[in-house]
């Protein structure tokens, strides 16, 4: 889709996913690496994950920038100097914060997740707040950098001119926390961690369950057809659940002890069945249940394989395609660039 686009990627860690996505869309993305190169090379799995499909060059920026459509980078270079080399250049700068009082404040993915409010609601009430797996504030900022870059590219079609686009990873993470600041703004309430209890009313319902060979997610919710479907498949095992008039109650406000008694029945039923069996029952009866895939299950998923998600990269399966298109998608090579290999 972006075959004509030439991108210079000067990021390390924060923002690396941006060049990765643009390469997947057909752009020529070159990591510009002086000296020992991107420090993330020391972390080989992460480096492969965020950099496959890119090229690498140690050439001088002054030689590369005049031919490039865009630069994606972290702060540090002078925008005016880049623009002097190429007035059509789109210069995308991803940083923890937009320029301002916090521009030099040290940040990691963990501390951005804390400041965004996401950690306050992730995890269990009896323990410390938790971050999310991987580096989600960095990833969110990186995807926003792609949006910024392509929006500026569209604008350049109209104006013929490049520009500077600055992107805040912190604000990207705050947008992901879509409910908490909004809830405080409108109700004056702040959220708290509820573990695996889904809280929608005065009570809470369990949403992660052990089964015979792993875990599934399902919950007692105010969806009478779904609840009746579960009672039907449980048969005699439903016990008191069979007596409930789902149209007459609000599950979300039912006292926890009552729900716990019902959930004990469900737990016993799930423990005797596999993830696949429960998934099949859900598909057939509209139960709203999903099995929970561990990383090994995700890598082995027939569905994801059929959709062509994976790319073989140095003996690993890593996510390649961003989506499925009706156009034949040309796949970039599943290659992790050696330092400066483009210059050989």
């Amino acid at each position, binding site marked *: *889709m*972006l075959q004509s686009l030439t991108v210079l990627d000067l990021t390390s860690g924060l923002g690396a996913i941006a060049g*990765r*996505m643009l390469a997947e*869309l057909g752009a020529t993305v070159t990591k510009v690496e002086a000296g020992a190169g991107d420090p993330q090379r020391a*972390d080989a*799995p992460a480096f492969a994950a965020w950099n496959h499909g890119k090229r690498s060059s140690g050439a001088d920026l002054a030689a590369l920038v005049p031919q490039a459509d865009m630069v994606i980078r972290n702060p540090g270079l002078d925008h005016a100097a880049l623009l002097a080399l190429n007035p059509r250049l789109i210069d995308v700068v991803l940083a923890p914060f*937009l320029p*301002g009082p*916090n521009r030099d404040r040290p940040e*990691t993915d*963990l501390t951005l997740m804390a400041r965004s*409010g996401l950690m*306050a*609601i992730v*995890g269990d009430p009896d323990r*410390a*707040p*938790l971050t*999310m797996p*991987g580096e989600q504030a960095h*990833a*969110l900022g990186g995807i*926003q950098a792609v949006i910024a870059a392509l*929006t*500026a590219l569209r*604008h350049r079609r*109209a104006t013929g*001119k490049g*520009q500077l*686009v*600055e992107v805040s990873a912190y*604000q990207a993470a705050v*947008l*992901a*926390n*879509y409910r*908490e600041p909004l*809830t405080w*703004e*409108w109700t004056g309430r702040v*959220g708290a961690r509820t*573990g695996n209890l889904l809280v929608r009313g005065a009570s809470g319902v369990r*949403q*992660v369950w*052990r089964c015979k060979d792993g875990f599934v*997610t399902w919950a007692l919710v105010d969806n009478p057809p779904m609840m009746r479907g579960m009672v039907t498949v449980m048969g005699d095992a439903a016990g008191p659940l069979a007596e409930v008039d789902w149209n007459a109650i609000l599950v979300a406000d039912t006292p926890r002890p009552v729900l716990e008694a019902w959930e004990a029945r469900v737990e016993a039923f799930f423990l005797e069945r596999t993830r696949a069996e429960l998934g099949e029952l859900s*598909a057939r009866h509209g139960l709203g249940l*999903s099995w*929970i895939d561990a*990383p090994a299950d*995700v*890598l082995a998923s*027939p*569905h*994801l394989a059929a959709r062509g998600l994976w790319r073989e990269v140095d003996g690993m399966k890593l996510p390649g395609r*961003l*989506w*499925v*298109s009706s156009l034949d998608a040309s796949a970039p090579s599943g290659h992790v660039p050696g330092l400066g290999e483009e210059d050989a």
Partner: protein
Amino acid sequence: MTLPLEGVKIADFSWVGAGPRATKDMADFGATVIKIESRKRLDLGRLSPPFAGKGRDPDASAFFAITNTSKMGVTINLGDPRGVEVAKKLVAWADIVVENFSHGYMDRVGLSFETLKSIKPDIIQVSVSVAGREGPLGTLRGYGNSAAALSGLAALSGWPDRDPHMPPFAYGDVVAPMFATVAMLAALEHRDRTGEGQHIDISQVEPLVHVLSDCLAREQAGGFAKPGNRSPSMAPHGAFPCRGKDQWCAIAVADDAQWTMLAELVGVGGDARFATLSGRKANEDALESLIADWTDGQDKHVLADRLSALGIAAEAVNDGRDVFTDPELATNGHYHRIDHPKLGRCDLPGPPMRFSAAEMRVENPPCLGEHNRAIFVDLLGMDPAEVDALVQEGALA
């Protein structure tokens, strides 16, 4: 200064979160987005709290508002063939059609991609669904947790000694629309270069797999146990208790030099166990316990600022109030003030970026059917009497 996407036209059939968040981006960047809704099948986002005022006015949901800024809105009943005919006029007008209905719905109402192409040969259609339309799970009916469950996110979340954890917000509804925005922009570029439209099928699962790429690489490079708050390359790296109920400060020490500074403050400067990263990792329980004893009772914001001034990454674990009132967001224009007939004067978030040579906007979300006349009569040129009749008869409702 101009809006960067001025002139881009989007017919937005999407609802709830996974589609509307993407078209919000496009609208804030200047695209004309016409949101197609129906009173017969309300966008569930309009029924989501919090609401302005008492009751549940579908024009007063703040959740709907933050997801639909800068759009125009019309009501079309796609269950009525006359409504579908009007929808086709919007397809003819549009560059892009967006939808996130359940599998087969667009085909059933007569708006398949083949039909859209026959109306507008270079149309771009972006569809968002839980597991994608193609593939063995293409018909999967998704619920809130499906994307987290099927992507590995739930399995990798939570404490190492406990069950998988379901993060209490729909992260698939966050990341998939960002991919949809990228898809629209990339497809516009491709169309302008080649003249070709396309149908893009976005799954909510796959974007989550993408943002977990490093975890999957580690899994294959020797196994990856979920780490909770810990990091292989930094220690300490976690959240530590502070003064007040459920108040915490996150601290990430990047190297031995930073540790030396922190160790002096904590009063464990001479403890040789912690001098190197490998030593701190080997004694992480003891390390965290000593730091927690030191942080306990300190104000989370004061502590974070004090450590930051030393160059050590530290931030208060903010709650919703802390985030909404964070001066960083005010200083950098994260929130935009609107004046809305039902919501009143309020602040809604905009895109997390700024352009040196273009503007962005965050304008009112549409009330239900607010732009029916402007779109049906003024834009599409329909006869006002015909529009009134179709509204009365429920086809444009």
